[in-house]
C-alpha cells in the first residue's frame, strides 16, 4: 500500500528541468545504445547493477519492465524522451520503492541513480550506478499536510453529531459545520449538513483516506446512512530545506514573471511555477514550502525544477 514512505517512485519519474534524460532517472530503454557502447540488455539480465537491485527488480517488476522495453524498442530517440519520462514514472512507481529504501538518502534521491538501462539521450552514461550530483538534488520534500474531500451521500443533522460524537465542536453562529478530530491519523474534519466533508492534517494520501473513512464510520455509527463517495485529494503541502541561504532579491529580479517578493508583507518569496502548477514559498534560510499539488509527483517535480535555480542564487557571504 504505502509507497508514501518511499519517495523514489515519484522522484524517479522526474527528469531534469530540461526534460533531458539523466542517469538519475530510471531508464527503460535497453536497446538504445546509440553510441553508448553498452549493449542493450534484457530486463532480466544482470548488467553491472548491484545484486540487491537486481533481486529487487526481478522480484517486483519483471513483467512491467518487459512491456516498457517493448514499447521503447519501437520508439525513436525523440519519442523515447517523451515516452521514457512517462514510463519512467510508471516504471519507477512500480520499480524502485524498495531500491530507495535500501539506499541512503545521501546518494542521489532518484534511486534511479542505479539506472537499469542506459539512456539513449546520454550515450556516455555508464551502466553502473552513478551519482548524478548535478542532476538531482538529493533532497526529498516531506509532505506536511493533505486536504481531501468526500461525500457521505446523505443529509446530516449536525446537532445530533455534535452532541453524541466525541471531540466535536459545533457553533453554527460562527461556522455551519461540525469540527471533529481524531487522534490516529491526527486529522481534523469539517462535516457539513449536506453530507460533504473536508479532511485536513494528514501527512500522506493513504492517511488522508483512512482518516476520512474513520470520520465516515463515526457518522455511520450515529445512525446516518453514510457512504464514501468521490474521495478526492484537493491539496498537498510539502516542505524541505536546501541547506544554504538564498538571495531572494536576485531571484525575484530574474524570475519576475513567476515571483513576488515583498519582504515588508511576508518574508518569503512566492514563486508560482507554471509546470507543474505549484506555488513555492522560498525563504532566505533555504527552507522551501511547496503547495497546490494534487499528486505527490507534482511536489517532487516542482522541487527538482526549482533546485538548480536556487543553487544559482546561493548566498556566498
Amino acid at each position, binding site marked *: 500500500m504505502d509507497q508514501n514512505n518511499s519517495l523514489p517512485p515519484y522522484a524517479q519519474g522526474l527528469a531534469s528541468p530540461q526534460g533531458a534524460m539523466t542517469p538519475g532517472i530510471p531508464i527503460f530503454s535497453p536497446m538504445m545504445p546509440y553510441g553508448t557502447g553498452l549493449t542493450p540488455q534484457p530486463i532480466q539480465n544482470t548488467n553491472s547493477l548491484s545484486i540487491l537491485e537486481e533481486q529487487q527488480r526481478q522480484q517486483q517488476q519483471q513483467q512491467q519492465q518487459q512491456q516498457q522495453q517493448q514499447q521503447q524498442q519501437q520508439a525513436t530517440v525523440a519519442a523515447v524522451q517523451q515516452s521514457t519520462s512517462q514510463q519512467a514514472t510508471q516504471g519507477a512507481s512500480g520499480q524502485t520503492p524498495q531500491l530507495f529504501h535500501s539506499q541512503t538518502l545521501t546518494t542521489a534521491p532518484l534511486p534511479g541513480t542505479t539506472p537499469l538501462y542506459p539512456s539513449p539521450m546520454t550515450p556516455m552514461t555508464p551502466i553502473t550506478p552513478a551519482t548524478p550530483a548535478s542532476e538531482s538534488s538529493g533532497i526529498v520534500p516531506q509532505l506536511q499536510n493533505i486536504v481531501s474531500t468526500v461525500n457521505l451521500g446523505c443529509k446530516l443533522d449536525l446537532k445530533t453529531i455534535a452532541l453524541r460524537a*466525541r471531540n466535536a465542536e459545533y457553533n*453554527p453562529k*460562527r*461556522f455551519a459545520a461540525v469540527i471533529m478530530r481524531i487522534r490516529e491519523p491526527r486529522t481534523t474534519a469539517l462535516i457539513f449538513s449536506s453530507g460533504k466533508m473536508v479532511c485536513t*492534517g494528514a501527512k500522506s494520501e493513504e492517511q488522508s483516506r483512512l482518516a476520512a473513512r474513520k470520520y465516515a464510520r463515526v457518522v455511520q455509527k450515529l445512525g446516518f446512512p453514510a457512504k464514501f463517495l468521490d474521495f478526492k485529494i484537493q491539496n498537498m503541502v510539502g516542505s524541505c530545506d536546501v541547506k544554504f541561504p538564498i538571495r531572494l532579491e536576485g531571484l525575484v529580479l530574474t524570475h519576475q514573471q513567476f515571483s513576488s517578493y515583498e519582504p515588508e508583507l511576508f518574508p518569503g518569496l512566492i514563486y508560482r511555477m507554471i509546470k507543474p502548477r505549484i506555488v513555492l514559498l522560498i525563504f532566505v534560510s533555504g527552507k522551501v514550502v511547496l503547495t497546490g499539488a494534487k499528486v505527490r509527483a507534482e511536489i517532487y517535480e516542482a522541487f527538482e525544477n526549482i533546485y538548480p535555480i536556487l543553487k544559482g542564487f546561493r548566498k556566498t557571504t
Partner: protein
Amino acid sequence: MAYQLYRNTTLGNSLQESLDELIQGSLNTYRFCDNVWTFVLNDVEFREVTELIKVDKVKIVACDGKNTGSNTTE
C-alpha cells in the same frame, strides 16, 4: 481576539491544539455545542493551598460567562 482560536479551527488549518492536549494524555474528550463546552479529563490534580485532590476522571461543563444576547441556533 476572543474568537481567534476558533477562527483557526473554522478554516480547518488549526494547530489542533485539542489533539495536542489529547496526545499529552490529559484530555480525554471535548465537545462544544449550544455554546457549552464539555470536557472529560483523566488523572487530574486539583491543587489548593492546603489541599491536593487527585481524581481519575473529571467532567467539566462550562457555559459562557457573559450574556451572549440572542442565541438562536436553528
